[in-house]
């Protein structure tokens, strides 16, 4: 059954996107298909893997478990919006690069947004707490150790 589309205005990484979508379009699909921001990945589509994690008003959420219409009026930040400019990596991106926090990279956008969202709100977070946060997302390659190392290093750098 097809239903009519509705106009939705999204603010993603500071840019405005006026799109026409069916209400059943998840935020993850709208970002990928309608905003051409394919950095947000989709793994399980039921909230378990975390590949689709984005920041909604600064808080990590599963973009597969929200409809895009629900994000109207909110500020969305995706992996494309982490780096301050074309030349500079965000401290979390830089730490993942330097500490080999990724292999195939499929899970990486989700980890980067998750970690960035958490560290920006909790710069003082210690390892136990960060391990608990990291348990939100799945990685099938790294065995997590380097993700933990990268996260700890990013935390230190962001504390300055």
């Amino acid at each position, binding site marked *: *059954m*097809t239903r009519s589309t509705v106009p939705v205005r999204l603010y993603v990484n500071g840019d405005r996107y006026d799109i026409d979508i069916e209400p059943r379009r998840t935020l993850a699909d709208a970002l990928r298909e309608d905003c051409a921001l394919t950095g947000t990945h989709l793994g399980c589509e*039921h909230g378990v893997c975390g590949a689709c994690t984005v920041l909604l008003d600064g808080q990590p959420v599963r973009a597969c478990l929200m409809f895009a219409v629900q994000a109207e009026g909110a500020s969305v930040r995706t992996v494309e919006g982490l780096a301050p400019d074309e030349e500079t990596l965000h401290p979390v991106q830089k730490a993942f690069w330097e500490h080999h926090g990724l292999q195939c990279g499929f899970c990486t956008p989700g980890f980067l947004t998750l970690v960035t969202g958490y560290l920006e709100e909790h710069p003082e977070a210690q390892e136990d707490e960060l391990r608990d946060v990291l348990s939100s997302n799945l990685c099938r390659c790294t065995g997590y150790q380097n993700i933990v190392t990268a996260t700890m290093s990013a935390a230190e750098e962001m504390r300055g």
Partner: protein
Amino acid sequence: MKPSAFDYVRPLSLDEAMEQLAIDPFESKVLSGGQSLIPMMNFRLARPERLIDINRVPGLEGIVPGQDRVTIGARTRHLAVQNTGLQGPLGSLLRTAAAQVGHLPIRTRGTFGGSIAHCDAASEWCLVARLLDAEMTVRSTRGERTIPAADFFQAIFTTAMEPDEILTSISLPALDDHHVTGIAEFARRAGDFAIVAATAAVKIEDGVVTRARVCLGGVSEVPWRSQAAESALLGSAWSAGAVAEAAAAAADEVDPPSDSHGDADYRRDLVRALLPRALNTAGAGS
């Protein structure tokens, strides 16, 4: 997969939400945090024709302490419960339980009331509600009513709410400082639904248990108040040994299901292990 098509309604007041839901209650679903409903829609296990999104309805969020009871708005996010500054044994139970609901990105969206309306037998909030004889306030265009937890949770994914009713708030008794509370659970991976969970609130006066409440998850279709454990504890001298005996009584009493997550005997073992952990007496001498 992708959800099937639906009409999306975003009411801006509770009255409007109730009216919208009343139009076609059997084909409509209330959308709160979406952390259970949207996975089911993505898998097409749920195919509502209409979604009534209550995320912009004012007045449904917050934790309000009163004289004898604490009222929690249905749309209060799990994360807000985890961060509550509520004092006393109830506050500490709520914070400990919230930290075990899924993961951070689930807790930023998922809601206290959504969890209770969803009625999963292993859900932390259903357990806490049944443990403390919570009262659920529900509203529809037909009026308002309050349903005690003993009647509310009926079967797996089935509550006493009618399809046109919206859960608006949940009230819990404010526990005085003579209470010890806690929750402990076991799951294979961090953040998964528990295979078995145990929660308890025990009142201790002059070293004697004067009130005992014990509730178990993962051992029956709905949260299970263990009368065996409660009567074992009541009147006993508070000790690790008394808790261990109560846990053994609970394990004997329950008739858990066997499934791929664990057979009945395994679940009974978990009951025996988890109740002392919930009350922080595990490993202590008797």
